[in-house]
């Protein structure tokens, strides 16, 4: 069991190193995710954000714009995650209140 787990760990690490050999250099502005167009010719989202965040939202902070406008559905989902966590703590831990504490 233990040996198997160690094998899993080592395999994971080796797999990751193998993958990292194919990564582009860090900081290389020519890496694919920093380009204007993707390989298939569609717009590359990050460069669109840099170009047009200010124009679309009158907000200089690009991260805010992406968070709350371009990808705001993600943020709604993530707020829901927090709500879920709160409700689960409620579900598991909160004692039942008597009418007395509520006042």
């Amino acid at each position, binding site marked *: 069991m233990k040996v198997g787990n160690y094998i899993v760990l080592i395999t994971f690490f080796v797999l990751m190193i193998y993958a990292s050999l194919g990564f582009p250099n*860090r*900081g290389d502005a020519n890496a694919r995710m920093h380009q204007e167009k993707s390989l298939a010719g569609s717009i590359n989202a990050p460069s669109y954000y840099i170009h047009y965040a200010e124009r679309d939202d009158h907000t200089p*902070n690009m*991260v*805010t714009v992406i968070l709350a406008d371009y990808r705001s559905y993600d943020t709604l989902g993530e707020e829901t995650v927090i709500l879920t966590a709160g409700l689960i703590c409620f579900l598991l831990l909160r004692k039942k209140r008597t009418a007395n504490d509520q006042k």
Partner: protein
Amino acid sequence: MHPEIEITLFVFLLITAVVALTVKNLLTAVVSLTVFSFISALLYIAMGAVDVGFTEAVIGAGVTGVLFIILIFKTSRRSAD
């Protein structure tokens, strides 16, 4: 991107992570984990992600630490490994 700063921070990250995982006293482990979070926040800022660094400093080093400490006080402080 400043490799010197980043490598230093990475080494500290590894050290604090190892400490957090190996110390037997859970309180020490949690304090070490808070340091880990804070250093990672510095690392994000060194890499240019100001927003993420800010969030990590507030959430990772602040609230998570508080929650961890509550957990330990509610349960037990010693760990077998």
